[in-house]
């Protein structure tokens, strides 16, 4: 259970996060979705998700929402990662290992450029 001290720290973190949000214009949030069904998990989806979270932490990426979803129905292509940039279409990547996930975060999420070679559907 977090101690009182650690919740105080969290309050400070929250204040800081809110300040940063106010400084920026409202550009919308990028969504990153990882498929976390049985097959995805067995294929390494947890490690893929972890690589994405590590990138957010290390590169200090603000305004990204990461969430998981159940079975996407494309078993042979798991782990599956979907990226939705604000106001853009969903892009689906297949067989995404942690290295590929880092590349997708760098090129697509940070750079805005779709990583064509890993796409599995429009």
């Amino acid at each position: 259970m977090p101690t009182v001290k650690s919740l105080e720290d969290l309050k400070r973190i929250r204040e800081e996060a809110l300040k940063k949000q106010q400084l920026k214009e409202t550009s919308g949030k990028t969504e990153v979705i990882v498929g976390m069904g049985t097959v995805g998990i067995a294929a390494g989806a947890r490690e893929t998700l972890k690589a994405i979270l590590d990138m957010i932490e290390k590169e200090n990426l603000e305004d990204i929402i990461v969430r998981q979803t159940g079975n996407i129905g494309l078993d042979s292509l798991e782990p599956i990662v979907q990226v939705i940039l604000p106001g853009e279409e969903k892009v689906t990547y297949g067989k995404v290992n942690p290295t590929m996930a880092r590349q997708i975060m760098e090129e697509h999420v940070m750079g805005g450029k779709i990583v064509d070679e890993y796409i599995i559907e429009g």
Partner: protein
Amino acid sequence: MRELALHILDIAENSIYAGATQIRIIVEENDADDFLRIVIEDNGKGMDADTLAKITNPFVTSRTSRKVGLGIPFFKAAAEACEGAFNIQSEHGSGTTVEAVFKHSHIDRMPLGDITGTFLTLLIGAPDVHWCFEYHVNERAFIFDDEPIKNTLDGVSLTTPMVLKYMREIIEEGIRNVRHQTPVKVKN
């Protein structure tokens, strides 16, 4: 699955899929009595007696995207392969509890694996669920309830970089402390 922690993740995904708003995961390692026990308890939609009776059969699933459900049968087989036991209780409309017990020292017992990664994945990936994680090693325990954290955050996203770091460190350190048998203290 290569780790028990991945089974836990998989079973908890079922709970999320069943619409649970509260999920409690208990992992208990006991050397004196030589067991490892895992409980996943949810308040999701549950199952009727008929489905429950069939749930450990690999050809039963509530999903429509694919016909074969393997998560629960795999977990059951893993427990039974090492002198353990498997139990699932469910009531339509009030939730499901899955319990697996393993003989800790059994040569075929899968390693617990990256339990920190599993907890973090669930916590971040399904933020609408109220999560409680308990990890006991002998007489020591790390008990994590995400409610005070979410109340404090008050709408600020869990995937804000600094918040993410905070969550990761609390869980990593809590689990490390229990394992290394140092005094139970979660500091930041």
